[in-house]
Every structure is written in structure tokens, then in C-alpha cells.
């Protein structure tokens, strides 16, 4: 089965290429895979009908329990004959009808393959995937390559309707699978679930089936889809795709026929569709639309018969399904020939075609007779069984079902007659049509399909053998103790009388078409499902625009306000409605919190009213230092240290950037009403978070994990648990974090105008320079090079002697401190982050002294090399254990015996921390250098709006 499916796909992939070279041969090649499928089905027929089903499983993700299960049982066998048999004939017909259409050939063949998969799938999810694939291929085939907007609209409507139904169905499948504990269809049918949400699952699945099979009220897409080429209509929209819904109903009826709405919904919707669509078919003048409405009508009947859940109706449904596939596709293909030879399919312009194309007329008349249910054709077998099954129905409402069925078949006879009359008869008052010659290649597939009707009808024993195994499924009811036998003559029975009456009445109705038409014109118009679809789509569009217009105002503060109000309303409301058990309330854990809290809160108060940028930045710094103090009080010295360092560095960078910006905020202040609203929202949100903090504290937390971390920290070689977490337990987080840091630094660098050219990174003065020569060789304790050469280049009034001297003294000391912090991190507060930040600040000091000439850092390598090297080192340390067969980020420790110094214990995660240190240092250097560049660039950059127009591009 899988191999056959793959064959369809592979051949389809080559068809466009082949069609460009051999226009007709491509279609013959395309027909091969479906023919192979028919041959394969024929090979297995007797075994499958004897109850030996064929199973195949492809386990494509066993770890996730995802498998594709395929199964060939009698119902699937029937469907394979329909989809592959009709498919092969339609493809052969196309060789004459659409030579060279590679895209259509590939899509039709792919469709045949997908349909083959759909009818053999034994697993709900796989079935759903095939189901939606047919919708997609149908969309592509209807829309064509570059057709007009009506094609696109029709394609869109078909896709929207069937895919929306498909989504409902998927939901139903999941409910059903969850209820039953299995997604395998065969297991579901063998042991059907009941109770719980099964009724909902059944309803949703029916929605999907109704949409796919164009049942009222979802029927509009099928007549609209008739803009597609005729073979596409014949195959997708008569024989195969629309049968998917029917097939699904047939497949699940044995399991779900007793579940809540199943039978009433199936009978009501199916029979209503049958009658209403047949009535519509009667007034069509376009032959193709006539049989399209006829298809909708027949699908309604099939849904009703196969969903009714009795053995006889199942027999009838299967026979009608076979019959319908054959006669409807042959009728569609007939319309194709008529249109091709005469140039029209309007029955008011056709006259006497039957005399010119006798073979076609005979074949089409046989098909139409099968559709009308005349003996001895297979359509007659089906209709007899249908009447019998509903007549003896073992459920309430059988009378209504018989009435609907009778009315429907009356109308069916009438529109069948209308088709034959419209296409082939001589009509008085219409000039004789002069059809061109019809190629034999177009006619023989039609004849073959039409011949199926008498063959299956006369050889009813063979038909019975094919359809009986499914009808005998245990889940289907056997009506009133009699087993219906499939044959042509049952004696004079009530169904026979009913059937003959309806045929006669139908022919009368056709003869009386002119008076009937006058009556119909005076009757009120029935609600149209096309109008319903249009209104729905328009309504959705309109609602979306309305919603967008009223919510999308383009103002960022507005959006944020909405978000914050939502935060307050939804999680905040939930919190308030479930008050926590109030914990024991203390004012403070440590008295130090009080002054720190006052500092933070008063700095915040100043910050929100500040109008001066520098003031605001200094106040935000104060807040940061205050928070760092609170960290210390909470017992987090590592946090406090890092916070202090970061705050300082941020402050410096802020001040350096702010020099370029206006001193006051723009806009200085919003309107007072806006301010009040903002303050209200902000206070509510702040209060909400504070309340959350209280609730979270009250909820307590399990300390088990944290205790384990503290206990096992020494194993990592780090006695500082926070450091152990960063470089060992959660080292992957740290790796991600330093990557983010590097990325932001690169981003900030480019935005500030940093141009990374080697030329712009001067190193310290070399021996040859004037400054160096001036110092050389005077005395051994006189420096060979000037300290801070950059400062010499500043104008004298800009230099600060005090700062220079202090920096000169501090720089090496600070660097040593940074290295100390790096290694002390394992035992005391510190670590790579703190060390790197301290080192960065040492360079910041020098930057401040050098100012305009700061670009002359006497560094042998560029900042990006430092930062990138740090990241590379950390990543290397993380990956190195793989080489030793260990998981990544594994850290090992070993002891080194160093002469004189004694034993030294080395843990590899120290090198990880060293990478972090280098990266942070590199990032700091990069930012400083970018700032210098920004200032230089800033002097030459003219703000955009001040530039002359021509330069703005």
C-alpha cells in the first residue's frame, strides 16, 4: 500500500517534465499508478472479501508513537476500485482532452494517490492529513494556473468550506480518540466508545463530512467549483473527493450510529439535501451545473443511506456509491465532449446532437438511466435496496425517510430525463447544432464507465459479493429478522411499486416542464447556501476591519496601557478572588532595609518627575545602588557585587551618550489628564505585582532542589553555590547569556557608529616613535614609554593631573583585583562576571583620562577578538568533554603537583569562567570604543531633518 502511494507521488513528480516533451504520452504514464492500484486490489479481492484484511504499518517516529497504519478491508477495497478505477479512466480521457497540461496531470495523479491513502488509512490522524491534502489539491486544480478571479473565488470557497469542516472534524477525531483510547479506526469500530463527549465528537465529525460532501448548508462550493476543467469535475467533484465525506460516514457508522445525533442528523441533512439539490438541478440550463446539483443531491442520498446504520441501507448505499461513481463521471465526461465538439453546454442552444454523436448518446443515456434507477442497471439495484431498507427501518421516523427518498428519486428521474433531452434531443425552434467529430480517445473511457451500469446490474451476484461483507459488520442493525438479498427481482413488493410510481411521475414531471417552470417562478425563492457563504465571509471581513479600526490606533503608549490593564484585570483579578493564607507579617527582616527602601523609593519619586536627562540618569543610578544594597541584605553578595559594577558602568556609558542629546526630555511632559491616567494604570499594575509578591511568599516554595544544590556545590569545586550554579549546574544558561551579551554589544556598537577597521585601532607607540625615543636610555627606572600617551595629546586645560595620577596608580591594581575576583569566585563572592566587569572598569578609567584621544588604547588586540575569544573559550570548554566521551558541559577536576608550590587542584569549569571574564571585558572595550567613534561621527552627522532634501536618500 505504501509502495503504491509512493509510486503515485514519484510518477507525479516527473509528469510536468514529461508533458512538455510528450503531451499525450504523459497522461498515459499518469494512468499507470492508478491502474496498478486497481490490479493490486483485484489480486487481493477474494482474500479481503473472505475476511483476511491486509495491514501495513510505517512507524516514522516510534519515540513519539507516531505511525501510519494502512488497512485494506472490504469497504476500502470498494473505495479503491472507485477512486483508482475512475481515476485511471479520467486520466486516459485527458490525453485527448488536455494534452500537454503537465501541472494538471501531476496534480490529478497526486490526488489519486492521496485519495488511495485516504481510503486505506486506518488511523484517524493519518486520515485527517490525507483529507486535507485532497482539499489543497482541489484548490490548486480549481484555481488553475492564471485563470480569472471567478476561478480563484471558487477555489477559495471550496478550500475555506472543506478546510473549516476538516478542522471541526480534527477536533472530533481527537475527542473520539481520547474517549476511546486509540486512534486506530479498526479498533474504534470493534470497540466503540460511548458516553462522555462522544456525542460532541460525532457531531464535529459529521460537520467535516457534510462540508466535504457538499451537504446543505455547506453545499454552495460544489456548483461553484464547476469552473474547473471537466475531467477535474468528473474525478474530484463527482467520483472521488466528495465521496470522502460519504466514506467517512460509512466508516464510522458501525461505531457511532447509536450515538446521540448521528442518525437523525444524517437522515435529515442527507435527505433534505437530496430533495433540495435535485429541485435546483431541474431548473439548470447549463448541463454541467445540472449534473453538479445532481451530484449534491446524490451525495445527500448516499450520506443518508450509509449513515442510517442498518444492513439493508448499507447495501443500498454501497451499490449507489459504485453506481454513482460510474454514471456521474461518465456524464461529466460526456458534457466535456459535447462542449468540445459544439462549443457550448447550454441546453437551450443544443439540438439534435444525439443524431450526430450516436455512440456518445447511447453511453450517456445508459448512465442517465442508471442514475434514474431503471432496471436492469446497478442504479436500480441500489434504489430497490434503499426503499426496502427504509421501508423496514428498525428505527423511528422511517416513514419520513421513505417519503424523502421517494420525492428525491422522483426528482432524480426528472433531471436525468432533462439531461438526456437537453444534451441530445432535437428541440423544435432551435437550429440544429453541428458538432465536430469526437475523437475515439474521448469516447471509449465514457463507454467503459457507462458499461459498468449494466454489467454490475445484471451480474448482481458479483456486486453482492463485493458489498455484502461491509454490510454484515456487527455494528449495523439487521431490520426485522430478514436478510435482504441483492437481486433484480424480489417479486411485487411495496418498494417495487413505489419505485415504478416514482419513475412514471418523474417522467411526467419532465414532460410537464413548461407548466412546472411557470409554477416554480411564482414560488418563493428557497434560501440559497451560496448567499449564506457570501454573507458569512463578508461578515468576518467586516468584523475584522471593525476590530482593527477600533483597536489599532498606532500609539505605543495606548497598546502598553491595554496590556497593563489586562494584566491587572485578568491575573490580578484571579489573585484577588483567591486570597492567599496570609503569612506572618513582619515589617522588615533587617533594619538596614528601612534606609535602603527610603533611598530607593525617594529616588524613584524624583525619577518620575525629573525633566532633565542627566538628573534622571543619576537618580536611576541611585535606585540601582539602593537595590544592590537590598540584595546584600537579602543574603546575595554576588548579586550586590554585580549590580554595583553594572550600575557604575551603565552610568558612565549613559553620561557619555547623553552629552550628545538635548538636556531636557522631549516631549517635556504629557497633558495632565494623560499623566493621571498613566499614573493610575502604573500604580494599579505595581500594586498588583506587590500583591503577587505577597501571595507568592505565602505559597512558600519547596527548598528541596535548592538544598541539593547547596549540598552538592562542593562537588563542582565551587563552594560558592551561586558560582557553582553559573559555571556548572546551569552552565548552558550562562553560555546562552554571554552570547546574548555579545550580540547586544555588537548591535550597540554598530548603532553607535563603530567601524571595525583594523586601521582605526592604533596600538601604543612603537619604539621608533618620537615619544618613545625621548625616554629611552636615560636611566633604568625611568619608563621606556610614556604612561598614558593619549593624555599627552589633550590640550593642557582639559587635563586633570589628579585623575591621571590616580588612574596611573589604580589601573594595574584594578586589573589584579579583577583577576582575583575571577578565581575567588569559587570560594567567595565573585566570578567571571564580576571579574570581567572590574577589568572593564579599569579601562573605563583610562578612557576617562584620555578622553578625545582614547582610541589609542595600548592594546595589542581588538575588543572583538577579546570578546569572541572569550565566547570561543567558553564554548570549547563546554564541548571538550565530548572528546572524552562525556556529556557536554561536564566538568572534571584533577590535581597537579607543582614543584615548590605543592599540590594544586584544578577544576575545568574555571576555564569556562575565564571565557566569561574575557567576553565581558571584550564587551566593555567594544562599547567604550564605539562611544569614542560615536562622538567623532556625531560631529559630522547632521540630523536627518536638517539635511537638504537631495541628500536624504
Amino acid at each position: 500500500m505504501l509502495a503504491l502511494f509512493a509510486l503515485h507521488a514519484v510518477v507525479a513528480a516527473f509528469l510536468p517534465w514529461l508533458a512538455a516533451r510528450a503531451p499525450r504520452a504523459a497522461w498515459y504514464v499518469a494512468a499507470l499508478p492508478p491502474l496498478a492500484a486497481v490490479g493490486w486490489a483485484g489480486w487481493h479481492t477474494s482474500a479481503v472479501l473472505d475476511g483476511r484484511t491486509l495491514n501495513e504499518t510505517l512507524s516514522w517516529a516510534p519515540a513519539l508513537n507516531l505511525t501510519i497504519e494502512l488497512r485494506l478491508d472490504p469497504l476500502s477495497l470498494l473505495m479503491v476500485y472507485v477512486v483508482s478505477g475512475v481515476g485511471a479512466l479520467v486520466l486516459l480521457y485527458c490525453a485527448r482532452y488536455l494534452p500537454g497540461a503537465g501541472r494538471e496531470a501531476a496534480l490529478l495523479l497526486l490526488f489519486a494517490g492521496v485519495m488511495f491513502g485516504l481510503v486505506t488509512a486506518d488511523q484517524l490522524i493519518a486520515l485527517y492529513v490525507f483529507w486535507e491534502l485532497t482539499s489543497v489539491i482541489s484548490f490548486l486544480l480549481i484555481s488553475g494556473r492564471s485563470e480569472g478571479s471567478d476561478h480563484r473565488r471558487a477555489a477559495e470557497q471550496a478550500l475555506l468550506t472543506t478546510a473549516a469542516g476538516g478542522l471541526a472534524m480534527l477536533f472530533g477525531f481527537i475527542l473520539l480518540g481520547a474517549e476511546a483510547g486509540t486512534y486506530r479506526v479498526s479498533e474504534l469500530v470493534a470497540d466503540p466508545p460511548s458516553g462522555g463527549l462522544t456525542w460532541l465528537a460525532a457531531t464535529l465529525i459529521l460537520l467535516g463530512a457534510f462540508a466535504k460532501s457538499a451537504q446543505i448548508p455547506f453545499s454552495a462550493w460544489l456548483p461553484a467549483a464547476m469552473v474547473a476543467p471537466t475531467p477535474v469535475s468528473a474525478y474530484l467533484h463527482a467520483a472521488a473527493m466528495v465521496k470522502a465525506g460519504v466514506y467517512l460516514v460509512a466508516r464510522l457508522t458501525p461505531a457511532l450510529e447509536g450515538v446521540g445525533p448521528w442518525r437523525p442528523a444524517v437522515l435529515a441533512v442527507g435527505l433534505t439535501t437530496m430533495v433540495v439539490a435535485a429541485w435546483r438541478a431541474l431548473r439548470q440550463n447549463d448541463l454541467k451545473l445540472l449534473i453538479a446539483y445532481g451530484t449534491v443531491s446524490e451525495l445527500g442520498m448516499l450520506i443518508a443511506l450509509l449513515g442510517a446504520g442498518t444492513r439493508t441501507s448499507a447495501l443500498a448505499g454501497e451499490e449507489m456509491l459504485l453506481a454513482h461513481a460510474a454514471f456521474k463521471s461518465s456524464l461529466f465526461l460526456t458534457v466535456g465532449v459535447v462542449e468540445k465538439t459544439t462549443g457550448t453546454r447550454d441546453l437551450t442552444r443544443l439540438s439534435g446532437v444525439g443524431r450526430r454523436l450516436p455512440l456518445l448518446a447511447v453511453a450517456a443515456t445508459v448512465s442517465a438511466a442508471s442514475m434514474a434507477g431503471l432496471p436492469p442497471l446497478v442504479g436500480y439495484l441500489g434504489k430497490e435496496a434503499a426503499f426496502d431498507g427504509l421501508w423496514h427501518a428498525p428505527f423511528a421516523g422511517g416513514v419520513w425517510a421513505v417519503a424523502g427518498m421517494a420525492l428525491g428519486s422522483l426528482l432524480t428521474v426528472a433531471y436525468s430525463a432533462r439531461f438526456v433531452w437537453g444534451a441530445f434531443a432535437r428541440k423544435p425552434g432551435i437550429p440544429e447544432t453541428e458538432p465536430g467529430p469526437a475523437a475515439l480517445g474521448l469516447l471509449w473511457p465514457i463507454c467503459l464507465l457507462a458499461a459498468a451500469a449494466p454489467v454490475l446490474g445484471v451480474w448482481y451476484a458479483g456486486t453482492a459479493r463485493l458489498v455484502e461483507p461491509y454490510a454484515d459488520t456487527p455494528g449495523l442493525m439487521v431490520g426485522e429478522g430478514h436478510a435482504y438479498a441483492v437481486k433484480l427481482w424480489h417479486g411485487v413488493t411495496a418498494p417495487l411499486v413505489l419505485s415504478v410510481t416514482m419513475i412514471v411521475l418523474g417522467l411526467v414531471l419532465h414532460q410537464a416542464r413548461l407548466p412546472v417552470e411557470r409554477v416554480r417562478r411564482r414560488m418563493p425563492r428557497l434560501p440559497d447556501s451560496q448567499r449564506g457563504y457570501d454573507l458569512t465571509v463578508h461578515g468576518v471581513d467586516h468584523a475584522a476591519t471593525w476590530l482593527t479600526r477600533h483597536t489599532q490606533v498606532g500609539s505605543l503608549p495606548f497598546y502598553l496601557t491595554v496590556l497593563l490593564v489586562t494584566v491587572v484585570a485578568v491575573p490580578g483579578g484571579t489573585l484577588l478572588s483567591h486570597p492567599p493564607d496570609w503569612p506572618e507579617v513582619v515589617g522588615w527582616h533587617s533594619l538596614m532595609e528601612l534606609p535602603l527602601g527610603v533611598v530607593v523609593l525617594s529616588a524613584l519619586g524624583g525619577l518620575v518627575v525629573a525633566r532633565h536627562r542627566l538628573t534622571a540618569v543619576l537618580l536611576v543610578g541611585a535606585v540601582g545602588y539602593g537595590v544592590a544594597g537590598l540584595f546584600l541584605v537579602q543574603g546575595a553578595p554576588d548579586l550586590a557585587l554585580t549590580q554595583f559594577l553594572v550600575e557604575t558602568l551603565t552610568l558612565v556609558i549613559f553620561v557619555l551618550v547623553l552629552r550628545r542629546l538635548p538636556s531636557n526630555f522631549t516631549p517635556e511632559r504629557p497633558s495632565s489628564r494623560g499623566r493621571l491616567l498613566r499614573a493610575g494604570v502604573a500604580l494599579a499594575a505595581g500594586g498588583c505585582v506587590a500583591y503577587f509578591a505577597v501571595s507568592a511568599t505565602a505559597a512558600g516554595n519547596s527548598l528541596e532542589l535548592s538544598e541539593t544544590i547547596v549540598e552538592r556545590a562542593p562537588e563542582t569545586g565551587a563552594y560558592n553555590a551561586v558560582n557553582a550554579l553559573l559555571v556548572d549546574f546551569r552552565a548552558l544558561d550562562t553560555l546562552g547569556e554571554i552570547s546574548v551579551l555579545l550580540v547586544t554589544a555588537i548591535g550597540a556598537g554598530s548603532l553607535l557608529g563603530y567601524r571595525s577597521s583594523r586601521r582605526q585601532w592604533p596600538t601604543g607607540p612603537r619604539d621608533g616613535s618620537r615619544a618613545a625615543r625621548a625616554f629611552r636610555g636615560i636611566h633604568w627606572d625611568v619608563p621606556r614609554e610614556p604612561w598614558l600617551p593619549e593624555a599627552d595629546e589633550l590640550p593642557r586645560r582639559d587635563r586633570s593631573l589628579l585623575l591621571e595620577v590616580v588612574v596611573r596608580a589604580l589601573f594595574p591594581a584594578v586589573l589584579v583585583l579583577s583577576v582575583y575576583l575571577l578565581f575567588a569566585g569559587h570560594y567567595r563572592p565573585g566570578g567571571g562576571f564580576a571579574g570581567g566587569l572590574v577589568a572593564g572598569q579599569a579601562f573605563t578609567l583610562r578612557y576617562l583620562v584620555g578622553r578625545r584621544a582614547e582610541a589609542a588604547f595600548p592594546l595589542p588586540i581588538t575588543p572583538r577578538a577579546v570578546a569572541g575569544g572569550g565566547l570561543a573559550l567558553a564554548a570549547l570548554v563546554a564541548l571538550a568533554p565530548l572528546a572524552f566521551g562525556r556529556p557536554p558541559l561536564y566538568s572534571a577536576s584533577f590535581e597537579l603537583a607543582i614543584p615548590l608550590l605543592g599540590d594544586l587542584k584544578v577544576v575545568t569549569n574555571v576555564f569556562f569562567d575565564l571565557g566569561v571574564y574575557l567576553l565581558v571585558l571584550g564587551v566593555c572595550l567594544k562599547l567604550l570604543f564605539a562611544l569614542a567613534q560615536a562622538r567623532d561621527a556625531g560631529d559630522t552627522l547632521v540630523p536627518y531633518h536638517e539635511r537638504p532634501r537631495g541628500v536624504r536618500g
Partner: protein
Amino acid sequence: MTTLDLVMALVVGGLFAAGFYLLLDRSLMRVLLGVIVLGHAANLLLLLTGGPPGMPPVVAEGDDTERYADPLPQAMALTAIVITFGITTLLLALVHRAWQLDGHDEVRDDVEDRRIGTVEDREESGPPLPTDRDHEPGGGSGR
């Protein structure tokens, strides 16, 4: 058992309120300050909900593990501090760039955003309306 620290809850609430207030401003610089303050607030909240204060979690022999402060929220907050630093510098660079290019660092209403809601009217009235962008001084059109 669990005890509630009133001062800390108040500080966290105040930090969040001030952060949100600044975030709602139209000046990019104030928005940036709001982001910084919100970063502080989130870190403190993380620490606060992580458990009561305790000794710094630096393990020494013979200590009782229950007396240490929880190291896990600390490690997370430490990561958050560094990330906030990175984001701050990036946003600051953006503010600088915005000022450099537009001559202001203001968050103005997005006209394009608002025009999406009128798409239906435009379809019904034929050709699209002229854009309003050209009238905005220094508006952020492509360059």
C-alpha cells in the same frame, strides 16, 4: 514558616509602578529608564519570592544548609542583571541613533498602523489615499 516582609513588598511594588509609568511615556529615553527600573524590580521580586533572607550561600564545613539563602533565584537574577545591562546599552544606542537621524527621540503614532483599519474604506473608494507620512517633519520614512 513563611513570613512577609512589608518593606520589601512595598519597594517591589514601587519599583514596578515607577517602571510602568516611565514605560508609558512617549520619550524613548524615559522608556529606557523604565526598562532599567523594571529590570531591578523583576530581580528583586525573584529574590523575594525565592524565600526568606539567609546567609550567603557559600558553603563551609559543618554549616546547616537550611540557614543559607536560596542560591537558585540568585543565579537567575545574576543572569538577568547582565542581560539587562546588554539590553540597556542596545536601547541606549537606539535612542542615540533615533536622535541622530530624526532629531528627536520621541515615540510618535504609527500612521501605517492606523491605516490598516481603513483598508475596507480604501478598497471601496478606489485608489489608495495619499500617505500622510510626507507631512510629518522628520517622520521615519525609509532612507
